[in-house]
């Protein structure tokens, strides 16, 4: 075992340059254009005429070292050892020799690793820890993602959607998946106020921080108990107090579940970045396959596929038809939950008579 006292610190990450394939080093910063070869395969062409092929593989993100080693083997076999991961956690094999692409794809697919996720396809689901590792998860991450991806699998493999489709998940309102700007986002939500373990609070938590952690000012100090009280009318179950103070437990298996938001995006392309908007306030947790969630998302995907114009991302489609039409097309109820009542609510109110009628019967 290494001597702890001599560990080098602050060395920073390995230098990426050493990881790059030769063709990239040769064309670094001088790529000219790219082409889609087929779903999951891109070809980048440099100013020199050099070609770089990328084979994108869908990943559950949670990977064993066994699989990682197998990927390393594949990289050695086809790519002089070069591979990378994407910002949505896919694996990409990088190779200069286009003749090897088909064999590479075949070997990956044969082993159960789907090649796809490029162009106008469903992208890999950004997601978080869930019940596997986080303490504040209101739903599971890997399980819900697996269930949804199994159902939507074909959309990952094809490149013929109206536009790219980015679905993301986060298992609590901390939103580690930063799902709040996704075409479709689902997020674990609580629905009951935290329980207060006064002793725990008194011994383990900084009362001022706990009070400050509450977005709606629902928490007041309870000096008598050296603890806090929570105003039931103001609490909207965000769980932030629990992040700051574990003695304010917010878990509630009966009432925890999932909310769905749609129409967000991040790219500055055409329309600038947009938040996703609430469309389904609650779906119960239904492990192992979360049938209601899967069905809801499939519906949301299908109405877009059916109705959007070529080139329109989810939110761009809705913007064109209007949210009132969206609720009609999606056949979803509109409730008090859908109307913002937080800090920036007023600018979301419809301050014009311009709207479409949807309740004509």
């Amino acid at each position, binding site marked *: 075992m*290494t001597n702890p*006292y001599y*560990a080098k*610190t602050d*060395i*920073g*990450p*390995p230098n*990426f340059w050493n*990881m790059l394939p030769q063709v990239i080093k040769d064309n670094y910063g*001088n*790529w*000219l254009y*790219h082409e889609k070869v087929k779903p999951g395969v891109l070809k980048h062409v440099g100013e020199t005429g050099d070609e770089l092929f*990328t084979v994108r593989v869908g990943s*559950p*993100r*949670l*990977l*064993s*070292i*066994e*699989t*990682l*080693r197998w990927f*390393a083997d594949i*990289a*050695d076999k086809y790519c002089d*050892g*070069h591979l*990378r991961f994407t910002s949505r956690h896919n694996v990409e094999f*990088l190779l200069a020799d286009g003749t090897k692409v088909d064999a590479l794809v075949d070997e990956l697919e044969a082993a159960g690793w789907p090649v796809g996720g490029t162009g106008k396809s469903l992208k890999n689901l950004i997601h978080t820890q869930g*019940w596997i*590792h*986080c*303490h504040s998860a209101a739903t599971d991450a890997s*399980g819900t993602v*697996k269930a949804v991806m*199994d159902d939507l699998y074909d959309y990952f493999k094809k490149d013929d959607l109206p536009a790219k489709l980015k679905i993301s998940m*986060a298992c609590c309102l*901390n939103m*580690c*998946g*930063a799902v*709040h700007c996704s075409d479709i986002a689902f997020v674990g939500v609580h629905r009951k106020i935290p329980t207060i373990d006064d002793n725990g609070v008194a011994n383990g938590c900084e009362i001022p921080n706990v009070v*400050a*952690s509450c977005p709606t000012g629902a928490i007041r100090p309870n000096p008598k108990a050296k603890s806090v009280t929570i105003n039931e009318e103001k609490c909207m179950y965000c769980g*932030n107090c629990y992040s700051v103070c574990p003695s304010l437990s917010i878990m509630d*298996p*009966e009432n*925890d579940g999932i909310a769905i938001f749609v129409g967000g995006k991040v*790219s*500055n392309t055409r329309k600038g*970045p947009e938040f996703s908007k609430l469309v389904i306030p609650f779906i119960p*947790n239904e*492990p*192992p396959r979360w049938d209601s969630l899967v069905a809801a998302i499939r519906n949301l995907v299908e109405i877009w596929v059916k109705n959007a114009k*070529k*080139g329109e991302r989810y939110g761009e489609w809705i913007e064109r038809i209007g949210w009132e039409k969206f609720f009609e097309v999606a056949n979803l109820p509109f409730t008090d939950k859908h109307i913002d009542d937080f*800090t920036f609510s007023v600018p979301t109110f419809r301050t014009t008579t311009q709207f479409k009628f949807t309740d004509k019967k």
Partner: protein
Amino acid sequence: MTEKKRPLLDELKKGKWPSFVTEMEKSAETKPVVNSLLNLLERSFEEKRVHWKHGGIVGVRGYGGGVIGRYCDLPEEYPEIAEFHTIRVNQPSGWFYDSKAIRTLCDVWEKHGSGLTNMHGATGDAILLGTTTPHLQDCFNDLSDAGFDLGGSGSNLRTPSACCGPARCEYACFDTLDLCHNITNSYQDELHRPMWPYKFKIKISGCPNDCTSSIARADLSIIGTWRDSIRVNQEAVAEYVDNGLPIKSAVLDYCPTKCISFDKEKKEMNIDNENCTRCMHCISVMPKALRVGKEKGATLLLGGKATIVQSAFLSWVIKPFIKLDKEDNYAELKEIMEKIWEWWDENAKVRERVGELIYRKGMGEFLKATDLEPVPQMVHHPRTNPYFFWYPEDFAAEKEAKDANKEVAGSEVSE
């Protein structure tokens, strides 16, 4: 190793998408601890609730972050995973690896942990998922010996990340990978020793497509752009059209500023670059014909974050254009960053992100503190309310201007 049945998780081995359960079972073959984790997870599936809790802070010597301590709330029943911390390993810029680096990571993690990973975490780190306190320091030592370092956690600079940029993308307007590497190395102290009011994230995208989602996910978003003209290859334009691209409906109609015109006769595309907002759409649809400009740099945006506390913010423009020079070691950018940190560190409450602080204090104060110039590019539109402030320096400037005017007027009269 108990041979417990896991009917719920077994369901998730079915289906075409690669299964995380299968991954875990692969590990479980050699790592009993993962079997325990699977059993706990099955229980979570049954009970519909998580079985983890916060606990004492753990870490490695000299660092205040990089490790997330995690404890099972049923330690008696699941003693193997009573402690199950994760280690955040700082990824190489752009997540580029070679097989050797991958195998190194695997070897270290086989020795010290569960064998489970997340490649990668949402911030960008390679996540080593699950080990015990005694292993932490040793694991770090081995990582460090092998050339890996830890990423951020806690109230510090979080691991910066970057899109593949110039390595694999013709749109890159600067060297995202070098910048990410440079920043990460320049601010190792800020990364490893939490001493700020809260976390600070940096994400770097080589062009406005923003493939790292920086505007949504980073306090500081560094996004490539250009300030001259889109380069048009008219022959390639004609080729696209000849090959059936419906240029009007697919390109012109989607241009947000409607600044493209197309000459049907000549099959030529004309861009009014003065009015182009560099949204990338036309370039993305016709990458063979159109290229980003030549006078490249980046736009800086600040304030992005997720939901908690003030609701989610998107980053907003604080500097429309900055040159990113390798030569001077990104000095201008670093100066700006450091001024931001200084102001934020001095003024923020505990757990207040920089965007929230600006919301509370106002852009005016922020701009003054950071010497950034107010420009209309910072806002969708100017304020609608008349609630603005006047400062002594405003009145002083006014007086000066007036006096100067008077003097001029006076001298005219006296002449």
